């Protein structure tokens, strides 16, 4: 090609532009700084270390629910307000399975399968029919779904506290003067493994490539033979599965199961998703961890913020990000092609 040299230069320039107008190095630097600060703090104070580990554990739960929100948003451009309630409902299903005699981990995996099916079916039956008309209609359907799921769960299981067996026991590890509950390590590990498996599915399989193509450019995806509508439904299924992981891992940290289990967590997940950039899966997870750790440390070290103020603080984060940098840490700015 005659213009190979110039086009290569041009493509290099475009590539650095594609990485978000040079903001990514700054974001990376910031994240490294935060990590160093957390490490130094943890080495100097046992309380700080404990709060950080706890924050990472609950933050991973926020992150996985945030990732569910991002998957749905990327697939259908719908913000699913019912994502948290769906996670709560699947946690009740796990509770029921355990009541019927399954062990915790049998119920865990059965619930993930049920959640996947549930998410897929919901997309096909409730979202797809209205999505043709407008995204707003679909968003309103998810709000309706929120109320519906809440009502159904209350009707089947009642509003009183339920108790599930602890998946990780009550052991506490001691590292120097720092005590870490096995629960928090377990939560973190389970969530991160689930997130990595979903990432690998998207990154390394043909199905995942088809799902990404369907979400990015539905018309072109159909031209190469991707069954776009199925891919979007599968996206909802995977989101529900990740939500189920979040619900199941949130339950032991709350120690009880009740219909409001996921409502504060949904706010934190929204904050995480917005902070990371609503269209960035990695951003959602990083955002979740940041929010989890930050809220946990703030309650301890910032006298003005009591635990009642945690949710409003998360909401303040949403507002601040939307005002200052709407694309979040890793999100893409909406670019309209001419």
């Amino acid at each position, binding site marked *: 090609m005659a213009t190979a040299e110039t086009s290569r230069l041009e493509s290099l320039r475009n590539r650095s532009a594609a990485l978000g107008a040079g903001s990514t190095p700054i974001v990376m630097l910031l994240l490294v700084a935060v990590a160093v600060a957390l490490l130094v703090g943890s080495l100097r104070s046992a309380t700080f270390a404990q709060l950080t580990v706890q924050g990472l554990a609950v933050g991973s739960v926020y992150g996985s629910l945030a990732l569910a929100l991002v998957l749905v948003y990327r697939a259908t451009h719908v913000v699913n307000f019912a994502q948290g309630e769906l996670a709560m409902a699947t946690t009740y299903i796990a509770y029921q399975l355990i009541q019927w005699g399954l062990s915790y981990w049998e119920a865990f995996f059965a619930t993930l399968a049920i959640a996947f099916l549930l998410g897929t079916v919901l997309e096909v039956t409730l979202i797809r029919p209205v999505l043709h008309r407008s995204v707003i209609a679909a968003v309103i359907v998810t709000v309706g779904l929120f109320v519906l799921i809440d009502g159904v769960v209350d009707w089947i299981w009642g509003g009183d506290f339920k108790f599930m067996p602890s998946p990780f026991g009550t052991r506490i590890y001691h590292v120097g003067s720092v005590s870490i509950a096995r629960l928090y390590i377990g939560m973190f590990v389970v969530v991160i493994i689930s997130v990595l498996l979903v990432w690998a599915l998207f990154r390394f399989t043909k199905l995942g490539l088809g799902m990404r193509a369907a979400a990015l450019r539905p018309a072109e995806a159909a*031209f*190469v*033979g991707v069954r776009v509508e199925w891919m979007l439904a599968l996206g909802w299924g995977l989101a529900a599965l990740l939500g189920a992981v979040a619900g199941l891992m949130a339950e032991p940290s709350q120690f009880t199961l009740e219909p409001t289990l996921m409502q504060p967590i949904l706010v934190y997940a929204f904050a995480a998703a917005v902070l990371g950039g609503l269209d960035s899966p990695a951003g959602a997870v990083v955002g979740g961890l940041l929010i989890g750790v930050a809220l946990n440390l703030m309650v301890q070290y910032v006298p003005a913020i009591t635990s009642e103020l945690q949710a409003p603080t998360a909401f303040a984060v949403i507002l601040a990000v939307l005002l200052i940098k709407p694309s979040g840490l890793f999100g893409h700015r909406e670019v309209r092609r001419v």
Partner: protein
Amino acid sequence: MTALLELEDVEARYGPVHALHGVSLAVEEGSVVAVLGPNGAGKTTTLRAVSGTVRRSGRIRFAGRPLDRLGAAAAARLGIAHVPEGRGTFSELTVWENLRLGAYTRRGSIQPELERVFAYFPWLAERKRQQAGTLSGGEQQMLALARAFVHRPRLLLLDEPSLGLAPVLVAELFRIVRELNEREGLTVLVVEQNAHLALQAAEAGYVLEAGRVVLSGTSAELTADDAVRRSYLGY
């Protein structure tokens, strides 16, 4: 000889606007056929009617099978590759991922297909990991063509490949299309504003105006036609 693709009295509309008023055309297996006509004549819609991305009525047969009820994904699975106007690459994905998507409907290894494609587009092999959006316009158009070729279609629908490309690249692109047709027996239905190029590459052509076929014939006949010369060839 029966045609690979046959359209009979095909109508299509976007909402209340009729885009095609009964188009009939045939594409023989192994041939290159051009669709010419002014803007808004329904050229792009004709391709979209074949690949199932517009509401249409009338009869469309592909390899003897009725096509008129199938959607785009199903048409792709039957062996129709549509390269839409204006690149149509997945700019967020890498070059390799774009090519992999081209072979989405194929099972098993696609290594042989990739090697054949790299023989036609050697520069693609070095840029496998590059994000497609960072390629130049011409490179993206080539990538779209390469992606369609990995699909190993029986029919390639090519929409305005010259749009926004430098003349050198347009010539290169048509040379490759011609080569694919001669060596691999690929059947091509190409929509093109540049009638010169299109009639050079194609054996036959149809002229569309306001959603109807107003003229058809071999490329030689069309090139000799006074009306075509005046309106589309400019002499």
